[in-house]
């Protein structure tokens, strides 16, 4: 089985390096095909591992060689395929294999075709390292690796120039890429500190050693570790206040958004919390904080999605919101539910993004949904696929989202955090509304695109074909709930519900109700032409539309002062104070040399006089310091 593990891990890397060989060359279809094929190899290996583990409960471990050995620190390149990581592996490889196939069509006219596949496969490799590593350091490698690939891919169209926020809220791909990288770095520092803390008190970064040892540590320490690790998770999963990069990351090509910024990378934070459950289950207070933050983000992000006009940004906010849901589950100790939602979300959100990609492709990269409408006539399949995804997202039975999301609400209610439950419930309604607002504005209603002279067309058949499995999974994944629970709770703790029967049914009913009413409201409102223009002047609309002004606040509070400060540090402090002091000392020496130059007038009789004065001084010294007294 070790063989399959290594194949699953390294075939994306091979694909990436292969594509990199042609990096700067013109498009070669071969690179797309090879990388996709290798990802399918990886997918199949992951499935084989899944079946193997499911059938035998045998955890596969591989240790390649030692990475860092210093003092008592020993970090190996160790990989493990257990119930949790194999689920992640399957999810990641499934979505990425399909996205690869899809990208062959999506990127067909792009100059950087080969480069794109190289980056994309490199991303998959990093993600596999992240999920398969058997220690925190390996996780960190993947963690940074996906950050790097995300940077490369967000900034894929690096040649675009910077715009003002009014024209493009993300300024430019390269700006967005840098923002994402730096934001993640902030969180990574937290995570690094967490690793240090673990190492100095446990002496190892191996999961099993650390988790076996957690019980022995005092609770304050565990709390601190939990906080530090969660800071890392906050960055990668774009939780408030480190969330702004995710919406801006939509500057990358859409398959990237589907794979990285919806399905896989952003869920790494959730994965970390799930993976580190022995730590988090020790510290329910921090868990509750995580859940609260998650619930807040769920509503906060959904509210921004309500009014946005950018096709991809809406989906990005919805991702953010769903990540909030996952953290609620993770924070409240329902680790397997968080993981389950992570998986179903990966499927339907990737589907949604790929659908959005089709639309963009059809509309020449136009993103404003108010310039679309009535597209279902030309893009029938895309419309169907996106509606399936939206239904799943809204949590309608029997789509996958229903099962996972509903469980999270149940957990919130069951653990008696009714406020959280209420927020999530509200979020569910908002989710349903904005999803169908998007569907309505894009696919139905007046055909506004004609006004702008677009000629939309359906995407390639293989792009649709690539989306089909995701659609199927978005529909049926929910029915695997029981077996999923059974499978992962071999590692993860079970969540025991206290409420049963009628209350559960009522909860499901209430939730479904708000989701349905959200959908109904959206359909009703937008079939009639949407909200009035006056609404756009409303302060609440503006607040939401401008993302609560947070990006601007960040710019005013952090970015610009930092720029100013660094200018001051350089021009005022470094040049005028530090360097000037050095030069001043040098000048004093230099000037005193000039002053002393008078002595060397060249006049011999003066020199003689100096000589005699020197002699006198020496004689005085002889008398003063005479050894004979």
């Amino acid at each position, binding site marked *: 089985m070790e063989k399959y593990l290594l194949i699953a891990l390294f075939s994306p890397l091979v694909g990436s390096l292969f594509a990199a060989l042609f990096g700067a060359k013109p498009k070669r279809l071969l690179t797309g095909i090879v990388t996709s094929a290798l990802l399918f190899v990886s997918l199949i290996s992951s499935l084989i591992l899944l079946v193997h583990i499911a059938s035998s409960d045998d955890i596969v471990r591989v240790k390649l060689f030692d990475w860092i050995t210093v003092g008592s620190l020993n970090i190996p390149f160790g990989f493990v395929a257990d119930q949790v990581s194999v689920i992640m592996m399957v999810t990641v490889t499934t979505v990425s294999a399909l996205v690869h196939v899809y990208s062959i069509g999506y990127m067909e006219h792009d100059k950087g075709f080969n480069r794109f596949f190289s980056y994309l496969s490199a991303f998959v490799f990093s993600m596999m390292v992240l999920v398969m590593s058997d220690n925190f350091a390996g996780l960190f490698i993947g963690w940074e690796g996906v950050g790097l690939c995300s940077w490369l891919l967000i900034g894929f169209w690096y040649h675009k120039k910077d715009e003002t926020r009014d024209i493009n809220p993300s300024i430019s791909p390269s700006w967005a890429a840098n923002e994402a990288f730096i934001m993640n770095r902030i969180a990574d520092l937290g995570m690094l500190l967490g690793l240090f803390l673990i190492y100095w008190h446990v002496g190892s970064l191996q999961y099993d050693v650390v988790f076996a040892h957690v019980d022995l540590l005092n609770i304050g320490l565990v709390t601190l570790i939990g906080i530090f690790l969660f800071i890392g998770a906050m960055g990668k999963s774009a939780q408030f206040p480190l969330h702004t990069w995710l919406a801006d990351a939509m500057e990358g090509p859409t398959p990237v958004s589907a794979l990285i910024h919806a399905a896989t990378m952003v869920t790494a934070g959730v994965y970390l919390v799930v993976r580190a459950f022995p730590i988090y289950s020790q510290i329910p207070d921090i868990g509750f904080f995580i859940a609260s933050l998650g619930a807040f983000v769920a509503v906060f992000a959904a509210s921004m999605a309500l009014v946005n006009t950018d096709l991809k940004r809406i989906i990005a906010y919805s991702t953010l919101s769903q990540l909030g849901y996952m953290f609620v589950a993770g924070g409240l100790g329902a680790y397997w539910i968080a993981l389950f939602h992570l998986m179903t979300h990966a499927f339907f959100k990737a589907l949604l993004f790929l659908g959005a990609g089709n639309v963009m492709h059809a509309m020449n990269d136009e993103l404003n949904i108010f310039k679309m409408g009535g597209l279902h006539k030309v893009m029938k399949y895309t419309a169907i696929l996106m509606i399936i995804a939206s239904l799943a997202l809204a949590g309608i039975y029997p789509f996958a989202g229903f099962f996972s999301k509903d469980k999270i609400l149940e957990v919130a209610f069951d653990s008696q955090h009714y406020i959280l439950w209420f927020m999530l419930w509200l979020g569910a309604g908002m989710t349903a509304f904005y999803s169908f607002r998007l569907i309505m504005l894009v696919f139905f209603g007046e055909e506004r695109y004609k006004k702008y002279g677009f000629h939309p067309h359906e995407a390639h058949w293989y792009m649709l074909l690539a989306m089909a499995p995701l659609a199927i999974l978005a529909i049926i994944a929910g029915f695997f709930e029981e077996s999923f629970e059974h499978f992962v709770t071999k590692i993860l703790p079970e969540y025991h519900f206290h409420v049963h029967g009628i209350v559960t049914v009522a909860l499901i009913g209430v939730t479904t109700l708000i989701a349905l009413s959200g959908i109904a409201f959206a359909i009703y409102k937008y079939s009639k032409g949407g909200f009035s223009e006056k609404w756009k002047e409303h302060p609440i609309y503006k607040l939401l539309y401008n993302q609560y002004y947070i990006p601007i606040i960040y710019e005013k509070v952090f970015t610009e002062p930092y720029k100013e400060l660094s200018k001051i540090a350089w021009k005022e402090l470094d040049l005028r104070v530090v360097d000037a002091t050095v030069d001043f000392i040098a000048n004093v020496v230099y000037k005193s040399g000039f002053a002393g*130059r008078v002595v*060397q*007038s*060249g*006049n*011999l*009789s003066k020199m*003689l*006089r100096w000589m*005699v004065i020197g002699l006198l001084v020496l004689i005085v010294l002889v008398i003063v310091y005479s050894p004979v007294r």
Partner: protein
Amino acid sequence: MITLTHYLVLAAILFSIALVGILRRKNLLMLFFATEIALNAVNIAFSAISKYYGDLTGQLFAFFIVAIAASEVAVGLGLLIIWYKRRGTIDLDSLQSMNG
């Protein structure tokens, strides 16, 4: 009784006279003379010490000083003559080309 100290004090006085000459005179020739006086003062001191410690080294030192003084005079006078030929003066203040 004449002791070593007498000689040494005499040497010191002579040396100071030489110093006066060195400081006061601007004529290079006079400076040479003053230098000779200083050397002689030291010679006296050496031979006095030599005598009172019963050691010949002092005398020999004085002897070498005499040799050096002789060479110094030979070379110095040569240079002085050249200088005088070129400048028409042997005033110390005319030696200003070493202005720093």
